[in-house]
């Protein structure tokens, strides 16, 4: 289980409306309800995880993110979160645009494919990386759109998305010294706080 990145709670306003896309068992939302008194809604596909969210008292709707967010109004949320899911979505570009249509801000985390371990597995060993963050073999993986800090920032520019904050964490959600200095090489998880260019 990958823990959510430590920065996320700092980027959430108290009593704000938060939508979590692919909320899993609801741990992040439940924590934010507790600490930030947020008004939370999660979207999740897996009925077992939906039940786990209900155990925590969360509201959670079963919805396939590949079908978009057309059932949501513009600017309905203060923050839309998507942790470790962007790379598994059919059209990450459309997803990002939708997140910033329904939310004022977005928080996105994804595996940095340019992380040094991935570079070694691909560049030296000549294999698609398989490791704790990317555990699946290439022919059977939900992670169909892997990218790097640099790739992601280029996309943000194309989509007129402003990067409010950029950071990195390890799989335990903690800060690493090297990752902070040189994120595209030593950052395991890319963490971004975004808004639409005004």
């Amino acid at each position, binding site marked *: 289980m990958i823990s959510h990145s430590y920065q996320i709670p700092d980027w959430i306003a108290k009593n704000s409306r938060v939508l979590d896309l692919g909320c899993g068992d609801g741990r992040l939302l439940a924590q934010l309800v507790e600490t930030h008194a947020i008004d939370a809604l999660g979207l999740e596909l897996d009925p*077992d995880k939906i*039940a786990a969210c209900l155990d925590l008292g969360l509201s959670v709707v*079963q919805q396939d993110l590949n079908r978009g967010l057309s059932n949501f109004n513009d600017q309905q949320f203060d923050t839309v979160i998507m942790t470790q899911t962007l790379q598994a979505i059919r059209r990450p570009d459309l997803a990002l645009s939708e997140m910033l249509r329904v939310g004022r801000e977005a928080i996105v985390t994804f595996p940095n494919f340019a992380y040094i371990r991935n570079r070694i597995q691909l560049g030296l060993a000549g294999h698609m990386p398989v490791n704790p963050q990317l555990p699946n073999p290439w022919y059977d993986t939900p992670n169909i759109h892997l990218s790097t800090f640099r790739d992601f920032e280029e996309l943000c520019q194309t989509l007129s998305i402003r990067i409010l904050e950029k950071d990195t964490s390890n799989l335990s959600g903690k800060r690493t010294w090297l990752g902070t200095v040189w994120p595209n090489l030593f950052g395991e998880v890319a963490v971004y706080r975004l808004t639409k260019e005004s």
Partner: protein
Amino acid sequence: MAASLGVVTPELIPFETPLALERGGSLPRYDLMVETYGTLNAKKSNAVLVCHALSGDHHAAGYHESESNKPGWWNHYIGPGKCIDTDRFFVVSLNNLGGCSGSTGPLSTDPETGKAYGPSFPEVTVLDWVHAQARLADHLGVEKFAAIVGGSLGGMQALQWSITYPERVGAAAIIAAAPRLTAQNIAFNEVARQAIMRDPNFFDGNYADHDVIPASGVGLARMVGHITYLSDVSMGEKFGRSLPRADRDAEGVNFAVEQYLRYQGEQFSGRFDANTYILMTRALDYFDPTLNESIPLPQVLSTTACKFLVLSFTTDWRFSPSRSEEIVDALIQAGKPVSYTRLESAHGHDAFLIPDATYERIFKAFMDRVHQDLGGNA
């Protein structure tokens, strides 16, 4: 498997204050046939109202007389330790107005004429039922229900409650329902009504005067309805193209599914009143909280104040998942707390009555949280 409620006893509760009805007219007085399970707590905060569907009644759980009888229609989901846990909740289930299981309906005596109402029983709507249920709550001393729960037409009552009495509903579970009927839904109901009305024994609804019942028409109505409750998959699994058992091969029955539908029709026509069937299907047809789209559904739901659970079933084509999702999307747009799951099932619309592990897990998680929000041992 959790314990059963055992033998339960219904109670007939009289109401002497007239009830004005949505589509005109009023009932000068009425009775409601009610069953309750579990115990109302001191704060009277743990009541759960269970609303029945088209052909259901007050007998939702437990057994009448002895455990050898058929249990109530939602026995799998109501009882000690079950989704609607009678160790925690005080469960109220009633036969709706216009019904034929003991509450005032076409079979009851009209105090003005001294004769049975029959076809002159006034048209009742989901809103009328909700008002009558609110009076029942008053009678029981329940100011606010912890939850109101129902499948199909029962889910529509739960939805109407959240709109009409927002301050009296803590949570609403709306299962296999729709915000209103489609033309296709109404068309099926009309075929059912025509089957009854064209039965020579119907006599414009005055069949009691002739000491007959339109059994053939009611049976046919049930057969049509029953097809819409099942799915192609479940009928295929249950009957396929197999032939009926030889010992029952009579009356020109060719396939097992024919035998099954005839049996269902016959059983139903023996227990269900034709005028009630017409009245209940009309209540379904007219249900429309958007008042013919004069108010968008998100706006209708904007004054609700409860938590919602909406559930649908993949092979339900009477009220398909997309109909439930209309309710979900409207609640999302209204900014209301809603949880939703589209449950995998082969059983079509009937799935809401049938045991299923994922359905139970999610329903129970929601109801357990409703109980927890009451404040533990409240």
